[in-house]
């Protein structure tokens, strides 16, 4: 038997602390130089600083890489700089929106808003009066019913396009793509003119769900189609070769294999409609009272609640109320998406 000692695991390819410090130093130097440039040259303001900072810092890192290694590595570092810039440019609006909503919205949050509606309060009352229970319930109901309508239709459309591949697949695919560009107000007008005016003559939550479904179906169908196309044909063949009918293969093999992708389709579908205001104004009206029945009477929604507080109010209280509503909507969306991700990732390896 040979006596052997186990060496400590090492990662010689990792960037060393020394290198990291060097790069951080260069970026800091870039910031200082950019500050000097703003002071001494014609560049001015935050934008001038940001631009000169990016140019100087990328240049410094480029020179560092060129000296330490070679031109190829230096070009590589330039690409990294641009990628970092792109990430920052993407994150700025997102972080800015979330920060603004949180900072302005927290003043509009109080416990009573989850137990009260706006029947006994006006938007200009102190934010502690009234609440958005009716709006939250309305949004959940209308989005929920829209999902119940849209998911089966969207999924079946996607299955027609990927599994049945009938003669109509091409025109349907074209139609679905065209429909995903329909402006939301048109969906509202459509329901208003073919259902509400000639038939029901009543603004209800269900009409809101129908209008939202028109917007949601194309999104779900397109995403689901792309997800189903990712399922390798070998799995379909394996199912059919075991003596399954096409329907059993689709429901037992293809759809379960695409499950997390289909959850993505649902998330994108909900994301498409949850903030919609225009069609709801037209077809489900806006209610200040709690309404649990989608089939009768106007129904409130969070976007409508925000819209009303902003447009019909004029006081600081009304603005706080609107920002509070936005914060609740944001939190609601995050919770919903986290739940969907959790459900889809639970079982599939």
């Amino acid at each position: 038997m040979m006596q052997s000692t186990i060496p400590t695991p090492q990662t010689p390819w990792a960037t060393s602390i020394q290198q990291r410090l060097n790069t951080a130093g260069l970026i800091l130097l870039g910031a200082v130089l950019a500050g000097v440039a703003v002071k001494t040259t014609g560049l001015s303001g935050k934008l001038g600083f940001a631009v000169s900072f990016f140019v100087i810092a990328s240049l410094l890192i480029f020179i560092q890489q060129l000296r330490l290694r070679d031109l190829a590595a230096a070009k590589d570092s330039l690409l990294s700089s641009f990628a970092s810039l792109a990430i920052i440019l993407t994150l700025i609006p997102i972080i800015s929106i979330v920060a603004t909503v949180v900072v302005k919205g927290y003043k509009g949050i109080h416990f009573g808003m989850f137990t009260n509606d706006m029947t006994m309060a006006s938007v200009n009352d102190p934010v502690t009066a009234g609440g958005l229970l009716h709006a939250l319930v309305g949004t959940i109901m209308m989005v929920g019913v829209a999902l119940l309508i849209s998911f089966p239709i969207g999924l079946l459309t996607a299955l027609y396009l990927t599994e049945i591949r009938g003669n109509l697949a091409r025109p349907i695919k074209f139609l679905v793509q065209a429909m995903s560009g329909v402006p939301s107000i048109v969906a509202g007008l459509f329901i208003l003119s073919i259902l509400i005016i000639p038939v029901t003559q009543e603004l209800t939550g269900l009409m809101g769900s129908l209008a939202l479904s028109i917007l949601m179906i194309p999104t779900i169908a397109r995403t689901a189609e792309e997800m189903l196309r990712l399922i390798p044909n070998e799995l379909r063949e394996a199912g059919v070769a075991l003596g399954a009918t096409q329907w059993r293969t689709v429901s037992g093999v293809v759809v379960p294999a695409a499950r997390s992708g289909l959850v993505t389709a649902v998330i994108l579908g909900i994301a498409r409609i949850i903030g919609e205001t225009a069609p709801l104004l037209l077809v489900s009206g806006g209610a200040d009272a709690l309404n649990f029945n989608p089939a009768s009477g106007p129904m409130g929604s969070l976007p409508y609640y925000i819209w009303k507080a902003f447009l019909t109010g004029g006081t600081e209280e009304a603005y706080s109320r609107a920002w509070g509503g936005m914060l609740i909507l944001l939190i609601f969306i995050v919770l919903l998406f986290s739940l969907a991700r959790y459900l889809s990732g639970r079982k599939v390896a």
Partner: protein
Amino acid sequence: MTPTESSSNENNMEKKMQATTPSSLASVASNRQQRVPGTNLLGTGLETRGVHAWFGKKHVLSDVSLDFAAGTVTALIGPSGCGKSTYLRTLNRMHEFIPTAALAGEVLLDGQDIYAPGTDVTKIRLKVGMVFQKPNPFPSMTIGENVLSGLKLAQLKKSNTDELLESCLVRAGLWSEVKDRLGEHGGALSGGQQQRLCIARSLAVEPQVLLMDEPCSALDPGSTFRIEETISELAKSMTIVIVTHNMQQAARVSDYTAFFLSDGGPGVMVETAPTSKIFSSPTDKRTEDYVTGRFG
């Protein structure tokens, strides 16, 4: 572990794998124990008469007539693109899964044409199972669910599924490796294990005939050896047709060999004979050229 400690299995495998020259292929083929057709079986085998196949306008297979006696293993060999996989897929009606496919001729299972009008295609595929070139376990199912998936998919009722699960995995030579992890996903297995899982899956619906489309082409020699053992074991109770590019494999596992060839036009079946004869004294010059490695 030192080399002397390696298992007898591996020694055995090395011996089997040593066959490399055409003459040794013949000796491998003739040294195999020959199977007696038609013992312990339900059906009377599979037979094709004048099978042609097309994809769109392209005629890919011409006039293939072959008999597969019950309880035998038949290897289909030939260069790429000679139509042997297409032919295999006509035997359980998987050919029609490709949208532009067309066909002529008869495929008789127990004397009944499987393409006869009114035939339930799902029943045919239950009787004639298939193992594919690439292992394709169902990703949404666990190992155990994969094995039994055929029952669920074909809506068969089985009372004792635990017993069936074990017997299928034992017959596929996978039981000892997975018996403690039946709840894990099939994707966690190695390629060779996945392929044996697919074999176990096709056994669960108890087919009379098992078609194998280059089942070992994506696998390492060890896994290949295990699957060949499995094939020999399965041949006791079913008819097996195997497409292979590996002539040593054909020599090791099959009783009969059919040689397919395409000269640019549709593929034809050049010659069929007992495997030892194909590798020792083929009738056709083209077969001889192919099995001796002069082309292909």
